[in-house]
């Protein structure tokens, strides 16, 4: 019903889409996978009208259409649920749902709030969300917001006579497992009324949900597989274009750590309502994974060690010394490195180039008397660009223009080159494609072998299990259980989930 | 709060004495002769550019000044447009920069009439003109240590008004009108402006003879109608019926005060300063008891004329006595009795002045305290 034929899209210096054929049938869920930079997001933007293709046709039921902007696409029944949280937080739920389409509730220039609330209620019912439509959006949980976004797109149903195509861009990235299940149930249910295009980095989820899967690589569709014929390894092979390491998490490289000394010790530490009474030790060479649902307190623990949060009770020791003042500066001075989840906001400074970003945390090492030694900075940057295989034309490249994986490597280089021996990794592989993920895993093993203590909040449970020496399960800010992760004796997914929820 | 105020006022007085000691004490009289009377005759020009530099066009006072300048230019047989306007918008920096730009443009062939916006700005303006060989006459603002005779011919003249006496006279009219008892408030100009200081001093001088009248408060209204309006209404709250008279530093302040009183349906005697047409009408109606006309039209014309004629060599400033270099402008008291007559003579029909009678209407040499 909805079809792209031989669609091309060029940007200066990039052939982003190469004669892409893409088709969505009624009541179908189509998966779309590919590495970062494979052209997924360009394709999506063409579909929902943010970009106009340079060549080829977009057809709906055989009629050629051309969208100048997202609104025109919406008027043809194409809606988008965004990857980033795209609700406007200071508005109420119903305002968000009908944003841009308030006119239907306006009588004599006056908005009929009651009518809007009623209509919003109906939309929320579609996604089985029972909340007051007048709630301010910032008061909702992430999962609730995700459902509101879906409800917002579903308003197309009333507005459009024809068929609906709804794009779901990484809808599960902020959701916990059971919430994902709920969302999937909902989506399957909704196929009665709409078709879906599902984009995710989580291969298992794509496989589980999709009827057909489009695999993209370098701006072209390289394969289309049906649900029943799908095989993770085969798809990954197509995406990456080479054999994926069987030892995905590099377990063979996991070496025992030195339990004799402790880099970080938490002794009955509490931090307000975020977490309570947490105790553990991190040793040199150890990969310690904090596992829990969103909001269980794992990030807050990381931020405490780095100095961004001040605990309300208990003792924190770093390298034997008790920490009294909690500030990022002192964390850095003690050799703590932090790879934040919000890479683009907290990780790199967009607008600053590669070497400037790499030395940001360690300027005293590259200056004397406050005067920078730019030559040394560049030399260091070149060394690390080579060492980590960072893809950048030169050290002057604005980091905001690098791909996600390379940005992550720059952040890593920043800490590693500064000699950080306690690394805090918050979702380090989030949003990275398989190749980049493997690079990150490789680096974690290298650091571990070099005696760096690592605390990890992983993107998936598999990742946590595969990478860690030790797993701590946390629920609602309280410690639940400690698992040992020696290769061969690793806990199972079920073991962990059992204690998480 | 008056105890705080008293304390701070005492502090101010003692520190002001210190200021006087430091700034005037060392060698106030021995003025620097940077450019000295030059031995060679200053170069004169056949047809110098004539320019007026002033604060802004939004104040009727300056419009009158400008009209005088334009009348003078027309008397030379030129069109009005021949007068170059430099407007500083209340910025000394722009005032100086514009003068410098004009000096560069005219290559020094310039006859400049200027109010430098703020007293300290007069020195660099005059120095720049002298250096470029241009001729400058100043109005109102200059510091006490700066004198035309220290710059040979190039600093032609300075005209100011001694506002203390006329302000004292209007104050007396006000104090008589309220029967010599009660309370008055004063709304002043920008606090550091010379005329603002003198006009308040005039009021204080008059008050010395009226022991039963209290000066309730004096606040600067920055020559601004809206600000005067707000301050007056606050005064009404603080002092209420105690206010039996209002002394304003100029007409525009007076308008704000009148409106504040009108809003309350009150009527309190007020006096103002400047003699703007609108104020004169109000005097005629009796809404203002008195204002002082300083003849800005003549002032604007004669200042330009002095600079121009010195520049053309029609007269040689350095040969004139000091009282022809620094002098007070004329003042005319306008009261309800003579307001209409005054209006007919000076405002409705602007008299044709002899722009070569430089010092006729002037009011004696400037004296320093």
């Amino acid at each position, binding site marked *: 019903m909805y079809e792209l034929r031989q669609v091309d899209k060029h940007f200066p210096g990039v052939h982003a889409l190469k004669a892409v054929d893409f088709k969505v049938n009624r009541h179908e869920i189509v998966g779309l996978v590919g590495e970062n930079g494979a052209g997924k997001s360009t394709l999506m933007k063409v579909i929902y009208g943010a970009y106009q293709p340079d060549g080829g046709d977009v057809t709906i039921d055989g009629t050629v259409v051309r969208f100048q902007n997202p609104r025109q696409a919406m008027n043809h029944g194409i809606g988008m649920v965004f990857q980033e949280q795209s609700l406007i937080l*200071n508005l109420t739920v119903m305002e968000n749902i009908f*944003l841009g389409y*308030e006119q239907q509730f306006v009588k004599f220039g006056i908005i009929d709030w009651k009518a809007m609330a009623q209509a919003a209620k109906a939309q929320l019912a579609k996604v089985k969300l029972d909340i007051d439509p007048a709630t301010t959006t910032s008061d909702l949980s992430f999962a*609730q917001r995700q459902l509101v976004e879906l409800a917002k797109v579903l308003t197309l149903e009333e507005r459009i006579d024809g068929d609906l195509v709804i794009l779901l861009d990484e809808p599960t990235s902020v959701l916990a497992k059971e919430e994902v299940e709920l969302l999937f149930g909902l989506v399957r249910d909704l196929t009665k009324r709409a078709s879906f295009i599902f984009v995710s980095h989580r291969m298992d989820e794509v496989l589980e949900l999709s009827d057909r899967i489009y695999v993209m690589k370098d701006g072209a569709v390289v394969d289309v597989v049906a649900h029943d014929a799908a095989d993770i390894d085969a798809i990954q092979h197509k995406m990456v274009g080479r054999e994926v390491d069987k030892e995905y998490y590099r377990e063979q490289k996991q070496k025992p750590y030195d339990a004799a000394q402790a880099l970080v010790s938490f002794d009955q530490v509490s931090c307000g309502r975020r977490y309570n009474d947490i105790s553990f030790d991190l040793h040199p060479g150890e990969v310690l994974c904090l596992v829990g649902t969103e909001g269980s307190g794992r990030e807050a623990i990381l931020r405490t060690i780095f100095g961004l949060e001040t605990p309300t009770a208990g003792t924190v020791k770093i390298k034997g010394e008790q920490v009294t003042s909690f500030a990022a500066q002192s964390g850095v001075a003690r050799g703590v490195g932090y790879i934040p989840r919000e890479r683009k906001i907290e990780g790199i400074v967009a607008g600053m180039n590669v070497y400037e970003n790499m030395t940001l945390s360690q300027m005293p090492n590259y200056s004397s008397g406050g005067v920078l030694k730019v030559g040394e900075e560049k030399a260091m940057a070149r060394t690390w660009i080579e060492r980590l295989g960072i893809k950048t034309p030169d050290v002057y490249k604005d980091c905001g223009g690098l791909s996600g994986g390379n940005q992550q490597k720059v952040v890593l280089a920043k800490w590693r080159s500064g000699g950080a021996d306690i690394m805090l990794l918050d979702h380090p592989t989030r949003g990275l494609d398989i190749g980049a993920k493997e690079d990150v895993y490789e680096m974690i093993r290298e650091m571990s072998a070099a005696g760096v203590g690592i605390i990890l909040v992983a993107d998936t449970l598999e990742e946590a299990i595969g990478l860690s020496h030790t797993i701590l399960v946390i629920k609602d800010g309280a410690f639940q259980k400690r698992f040992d992760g020696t290769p061969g004796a690793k806990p199972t997914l079920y073991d962990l989930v059992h204690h998480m929820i | 709060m008056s105890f705080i105020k008293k304390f701070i006022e005492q502090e101010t007085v003692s520190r002001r004495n210190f200021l006087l000691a430091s700034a005037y004490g060392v060698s106030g009289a021995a003025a620097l002769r940077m450019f000295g009377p030059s031995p060679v005759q200053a170069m004169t020009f056949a047809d110098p550019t004539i320019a007026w530099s002033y604060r802004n066009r939004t104040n009727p006072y300056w419009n009158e000044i400008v009209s005088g300048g334009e009348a003078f230019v027309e008397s030379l047989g030129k069109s009005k447009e021949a007068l170059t306007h430099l407007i500083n918008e209340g910025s000394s920096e722009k005032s100086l920069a514009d003068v410098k730009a004009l000096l560069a443009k005219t290559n020094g062939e310039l006859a400049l009439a200027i109010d430098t916006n703020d007293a300290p700005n007069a020195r660099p303006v005059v120095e720049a003109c002298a250096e470029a060989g241009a001729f400058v006459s100043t109005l109102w603002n200059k510091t006490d240590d700066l004198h035309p005779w220290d710059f040979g011919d190039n600093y032609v003249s300075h005209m100011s008004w001694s506002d203390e006496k006329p302000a004292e006279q209007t104050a007396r009219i006000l104090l008589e009108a309220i029967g010599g008892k009660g309370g008055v408030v004063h709304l002043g100009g920008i606090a550091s402006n010379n005329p603002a200081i003198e006009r308040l001093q005039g009021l204080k001088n008059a008050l010395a003879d009226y022991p039963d009248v209290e000066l309730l408060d004096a606040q600067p209204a920055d020559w*601004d109608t*809206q600000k005067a*309006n707000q301050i007056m209404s606050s005064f*009404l709250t*603080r002092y209420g019926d105690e206010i039996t008279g209002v002394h304003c530093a100029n007409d525009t302040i007076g308008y704000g005060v009148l409106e504040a009183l009108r809003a309350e349906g009150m009527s309190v005697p007020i006096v103002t300063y400047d003699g703007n047409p609108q104020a004169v009408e109000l005097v005629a109606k009796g809404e203002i008891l008195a204002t002082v006309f300083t003849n800005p039209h003549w002032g604007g014309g004669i200042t330009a004329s002095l600079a121009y004629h010195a520049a053309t060599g029609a007269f040689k400033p350095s040969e004139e006595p000091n009282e022809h270099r620094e002098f007070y402008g004329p003042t005319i008291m306008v009261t309800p009795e003579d307001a209409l007559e005054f209006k007919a003579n000076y405002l409705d029909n602007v008299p044709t002045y002899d722009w070569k009678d430089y010092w006729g209407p002037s009011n004696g040499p400037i004296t320093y305290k």
Partner: protein
Amino acid sequence: MAEALLVEGMETRIMSDITAQTAPPARWLTRERVIKWAPLLVLLFLVLLFPFFEWLEDFREAKDHIYLADSRFFSIRNAARIAIAATPALMVAIGVTFIIIMGSIDLSMEGTVSVCAVIFAFAFLGWGGTLASWAWLAIPLALLVGAVVGCINGLVHVRLKIPSFMASLAMGFVGTGFALLLTGGDRIRVEDELFRSLLTVRWFNFPIMCYVALAMLLIAWFIQSRTTLGRNFYAVGGGEELAHASGLNVSRVRIMGFTLAGVFFAMGALLAVGRIGIAETATGNNFMFISITAVVVGGTALWGGIGGVWNTLVGVLIVNVINNGMVVIGLPNYVQDGVLGLLVIAAVVLSTDRKTVSFVK
């Protein structure tokens, strides 16, 4: 310029049952609530503070003085005076409130007010000089002029992609310059008794202009809360790109916002002329900083999305109460500026929710 990032995204949240109703705040006196009402509390505090100083002064001089009852500051007549002083500024501040809610800023008010005042006065005098003639058409004309100036401002900002700070600052110069060009520096008196009854006729102790301002405030509130445009201001301020992606014509909303602000600036001009009976190039002077300060003091955030016209009313009153109160208690004029500055800082500090803002510039 004023940029802040909500830490919302990084704040960890406890998520239990996905479909659960969001729990209503358990306590009545929550932090959020206190912060929301902080500007009003500051206003109340100030209203009680100045009479205290009056009382203190009389107490030291051993005069009889019952706190509040004998206060000159705390009286209906003074309330009317504060109201008169505040009305033009309130109109201007309401206009700029809409812009600030959008996360933009408008610095063109001084020029716009002057232009509107001057054109109004010319038209009013030219068409009869009294409200009882066709001259009343000067009022809609002035509002139209305000709308046009605001619209040009918005067009320059949106179409030329110049940040609003710079675009409106330059438009302010143009406006003042245009007013000067029209008047040549003259002041225009508007003496019509009927028009001046805005100031001279009082209902229940307050002059008519206060009721006009109140009516405009209600209209602004209506626009803010009951019209699509008003709600779209909040959407744009809360997340412009998201609003755009939702199909909102953000450019149109912005231009409409600046146009609407222009209308309110024109209203401010009319009331300013009504108050002193004079229209001149200087009519707009001093509105810029005072109105923006008032908006911020009222609790509308400069980074957009938060606040509204009632906040602005409170903010304008706070600033005017301080100005009036300082004179009333006899504070020496040269400390008044400094005290105003410090009180403004204090008021903003009290009404900022430091927990939801991670940094401010």
